[in-house]
């Protein structure tokens, strides 16, 4: 129809009513997931409670990757480095000094993640020249590999075997045992971080990040220092990964070199890609779905399941770059809007 042709550009800025209706879906998904996560555990068997706890903890890690890649456009193949380092440091704190307080350990984990991320950012992201995307991704990947290699060779941290039989976390006089207790702890931290990130990504800084993702040059032209913004976001993500790593170590009661390495780092990337980059809930969804899926596949096909996972991933990358969340939510809603009215739904990179 010719009329449509004429009103073509207008479609980019839709009526506010339509935008508002479309935007209602994402909070719905978030609340639904939260309700499910709160109510479900008492009805589950022990195995599934442990499973759900692990999903919640890994969701933190996935959120940290989602923040750097989905929001700041930094391809980090080293998120496991931050979480693993935090895991190791808190494990040493617990075994060597006997600290088990959940506040101290989580705080330490967060700080370790923050500072390791700062160090990596100083090497890879900051500097006179803006680094290329490929350099950042390979740099973080290398960092992850190097530290795993060191951890495997250093007997003080247990070498290949890591640090086994960690004590339980304590909250005052309570011991937090694996099971519903630990689950609600992890869920509480996850919700806290999630809400915090939701504010962060909708703040002025989040707006600048969104602009940066769309068109870096223009944001630089406005006078923002891109590398500083990226560095700040990267460190924040490191902090979140640190918390996740600490929780993971104490939930498993064990920390090993595998938790530092590229395998874990790429696993995180897969989670987020599966779920949907650039939406916080996509990361959580990705962890849940990939882990559930892997579990059922491994029950059916004992050895062949990673092959199926790989093929599935390839298909997602090829045909649905916005992840599974892209099936449910429009691009416009995925990117979000700032200020009044809807922003144009231009596709992100």
């Amino acid at each position, binding site marked *: 129809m010719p009329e449509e042709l004429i009103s073509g550009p207008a479609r980019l800025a839709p009526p506010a009513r339509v935008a508002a209706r479309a935007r209602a879906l994402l909070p719905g998904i978030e609340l639904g997931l939260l309700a499910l996560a709160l109510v479900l555990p008492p009805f589950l068997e022990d195995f599934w409670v442990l499973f759900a706890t692990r999903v919640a903890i890994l969701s933190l890690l996935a959120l940290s990757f989602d923040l750097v890649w989905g929001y700041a456009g930094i*391809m980090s193949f080293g998120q496991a480095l931050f979480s693993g380092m935090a895991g190791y440091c808190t494990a040493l704190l617990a075994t060597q000094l006997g600290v088990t307080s959940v506040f101290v350990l989580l705080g330490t984990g967060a700080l370790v993640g923050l500072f390791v991320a700062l160090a990596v950012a100083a*090497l*890879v992201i900051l*500097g006179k*020249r803006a*680094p*290329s*995307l*490929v*350099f950042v*991704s*390979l*740099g973080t*990947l*290398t960092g992850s*590999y*190097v530290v795993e*290699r*060191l951890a*495997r*060779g250093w007997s003080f941290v247990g070498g290949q075997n890591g640090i086994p039989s960690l004590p339980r976390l304590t909250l005052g006089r309570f011991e937090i045992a694996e099971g519903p207790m630990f689950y609600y702890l992890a869920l509480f931290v996850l919700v806290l971080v999630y809400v915090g990130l939701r504010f962060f990504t909708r703040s002025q800084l989040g707006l600048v990040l969104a602009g940066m993702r769309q068109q870096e040059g223009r944001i630089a032209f406005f006078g923002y220092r891109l590398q500083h913004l990226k560095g700040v976001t990267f460190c924040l993500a490191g902090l979140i990964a640190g918390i996740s790593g600490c929780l993971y170590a104490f939930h498993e009661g064990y920390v090993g070199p595998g938790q530092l390495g*590229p395998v874990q780092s*790429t696993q995180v*990337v*897969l989670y987020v*890609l599966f779920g949907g980059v650039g939406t916080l809930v996509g990361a959580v969804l990705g962890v849940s779905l990939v882990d559930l899926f892997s579990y059922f596949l491994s029950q059916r096909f004992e*050895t*062949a399941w*990673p*092959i199926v*996972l*790989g*093929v599935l*991933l*390839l298909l997602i*990358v*090829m045909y649905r*770059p916005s992840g599974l969340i892209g099936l449910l939510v429009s691009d416009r809603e995925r990117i979000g809007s700032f200020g009044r009215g809807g922003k144009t739904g231009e596709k992100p*990179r």
Partner: protein
Amino acid sequence: MTAVAFLFDVLAYSAVFVLVGLGLGIIASMMGIFNFAHGEFVLLGAYTVYLFEQHGLPVWCGMLAAPLVVALVGLLLERIAIRRFYATPVVAMLGTYAIGLSLREGVRTLLAGQFYNVTAPLVGSFALGELSVSRWRTAVILITLLVMLGCYALLTQTRMGLQVRAALENPALARASGISTARVYAATFAFGAGLAGLAGGLMVPIYSLSADMGVPFLIKSFLAVMLGGMGSFDGAVAGSALVGGSSAALPWFIKPVVADVLVFLIAIAIVKLRPDGLLSHWRR
């Protein structure tokens, strides 16, 4: 005497490594994508040789077949999946990672998680002065040299090489001149994969065959390519020789773990200071 043995060891390791790095570098320079499945192409090459041996065929036949088989696999993958990724380097990394995962786990299933050894077509050693030198390692060095000379001749002397260089230099103009860049890209990818397959085939008698054998090569050859600078044949060779040589040489002086880590850190630092590659200084 140990100095000669040392040099020989470094040379033999670098030789195999140069093949891997060159394959990766050619693909990275041409299409701008880093192929995360490259380690698995090495593995496939090694596996092909192993299959030949299992079926009672001579090992050298397997080594001839390995690059062809892997090149075919590469061509197939390029046609199906990888050509969609050319515009988006990060998606390409993830896509090739997924491909690599499937290939690696596929071979793991086929090997049932075991380690296997393949005997070299040339066994034993010969005396060079007072030093005994492994025949197979010598052969590997010679084959690598030949392949590199062949590559160089192909790029500089033939019509196809001209097309490849044109597509690298200015794809739009190459297309306008009637060169099918899509075909050039496909051929390049297959060629890079074939080099990895050859490397895998040649190294399988030296290292044992297991599903994870390609993984350590992957990150090192990434670094090698970045070190040499993307977009050039000589850069990839120089970078690979440097990384391969130093990671073979350093363990003679310091602990292997420290050596490994040091190579990575130095390489990253150099790339940080010189993003266009080591050779960018001499070029133009």
